[in-house]
């Protein structure tokens, strides 16, 4: 569905370097990373809001540079910002922009708005931040895209709608013809729905891999400090020591052996991100360039 092939984009003071991954149909890919890691820049490149300096992007087999219009027909976008004029009602806004989409279906929009409790005759400016994002989501779904690009949408959703939102995107990909690229800080959501994970740090892909491989690649080791220090240094991504006890994120393999006195768990995405970023900060650059492309 989405192929990002060795894409680079340079700004003065920031560089997105050689991003390369492939997202098949029917899957949800979570993009995560600390602030300023390049998540939004990557999404902007896929939306063709920015031009890539190097590399190519294909959406459903079509080169974004060759057929921008065709590619954008396939994209549904939810951005964490206001993109609709405040003074127009939801229907007016949707009709104004919907006419540019071949598959725009007003009835579908109305259905989603009803489902999200959005009054169609209300002006966009009167909506709360969360409602505006819900409306963007409804509009994105109303033109029946194949790929949804979601840039940190869940932060402003109430817990109830967050569950509904995750349910909808899971339904969206369930037919095996649609995909979702979700960039977020809320790793709890990603953990729930993500099939693939792309971790960006300082504009570079630290890893891009599927859930099962990610779960097999790392372990969180908790134990006494001296036990942690006995771990092979090349396996340790980063270790944090307390007064007596500490914890470390380590690279895991099927042959890895752990001391009986340490607790070994599968790390959460949050732990992976935290320890990897810490490792990058303490060494100047992350030592975990696991470029296992999807």
């Amino acid at each position, binding site marked *: 569905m989405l192929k990002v092939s060795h894409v680079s984009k340079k700004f003065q003071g920031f560089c997105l370097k050689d991003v390369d991954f492939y997202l098949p149909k029917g899957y949800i890919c979570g993009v995560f990373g600390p602030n300023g890691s390049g998540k939004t820049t990557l999404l*902007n490149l896929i939306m063709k809001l920015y031009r890539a300096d190097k590399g190519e992007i294909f959406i459903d087999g079509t080169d974004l540079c060759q057929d921008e219009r065709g590619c954008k027909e396939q994209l549904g976008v939810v951005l964490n*910002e206001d993109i609709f004029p405040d*003074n127009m009602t939801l229907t007016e806004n949707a*009709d*104004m922009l919907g006419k*540019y989409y071949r598959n725009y279906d007003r009835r579908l929009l109305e259905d989603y708005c009803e489902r999200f409790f959005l009054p169609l005759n209300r002006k966009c400016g009167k909506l709360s931040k969360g409602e505006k994002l819900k409306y963007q989501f409804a509009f994105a779904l109303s033109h029946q895209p194949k790929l949804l690009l979601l840039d940190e949408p869940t932060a402003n959703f109430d817990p109830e709608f967050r569950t509904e939102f995750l349910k909808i995107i899971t339904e969206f990909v369930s037919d095996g013809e649609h995909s979702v690229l979700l960039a977020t800080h809320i790793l709890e959501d990603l953990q729930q729905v993500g099939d693939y994970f792309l971790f960006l740090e300082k504009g570079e892909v630290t890893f891009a891999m599927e859930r099962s491989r990610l779960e097999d690649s790392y372990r969180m080791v908790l134990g006494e400090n001296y036990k942690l220090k006995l771990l092979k240094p090349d396996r340790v991504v980063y270790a944090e020591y307390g007064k007596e006890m500490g914890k470390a994120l380590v690279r895991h393999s099927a042959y890895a052996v752990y001391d009986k006195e340490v607790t070994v768990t599968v790390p959460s995405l949050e732990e992976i991100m935290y320890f990897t970023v810490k490792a990058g900060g303490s060494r100047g650059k992350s030592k975990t360039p696991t470029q296992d492309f999807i």
Partner: protein
Amino acid sequence: MLKYIWKDYKADFKGRLKYAYLHTHSWIYFFVYLPLICSWDIHSLGAAAAWLLWFEAVMLAEMYPNYMSKAMYLCPLSRQQRREYLIKGYLLKVGICMASFWILFVPLILLGKAEPLETLGVFVFYVSFVVMVNVHTKYEKNIPNKDAYMGYYSVWRLIGYVVNLMGIVLFYSVWDAQSSALWEYIGIGMGMITTVICSIIMVIRYLPRIIERNVDYENCDRGYFGIGDSYENHHSNARNYGNL
């Protein structure tokens, strides 16, 4: 495309009107032109009509600067179609102004309140003003070192506006007077020529650059065109609500 632009303009009319209303630029013209034109001869309907037209042109230029909203950049439009959207948007504004001119002046001529020669003179000043005032974009303020990029854009624009204003005021003062000196006719002629030259320069030199820059969101968002670009500039851009 023209139909879509018309629909877009119509749909967002109220919001844009409010934006232009709050934008001081429009009101400078309102206050400057009103006393200078109308007080010259309170009975001159032509002058009052001219003031209305000038004000309409400024309002339209402020309401619909040559740019696209972020949502439009996300729509399935090719680069060529976005360029077409901007060019036709410009032409539509000029067309609306031209139509308004004739809608106002044809009845005045028919009623004997304006003379054909007077109408022609006002038309030259008006066309120059309309094509010049619409060479305008929302993101001008974001261009670092604007004049380095735009050549002498602001200088030409200022000269054009001032000469145009003085020209039309002089035109009506001469037109309404019982007798006028030769230098006044020469002044009108000079004003006409200068204002036409300024508008031609603006259209040929700057309109293509403004359109080319606004075709790509990247240039609008980051407020640059390859000069003085920096990550810091990106963040100091007040209109950039996105993050990295």
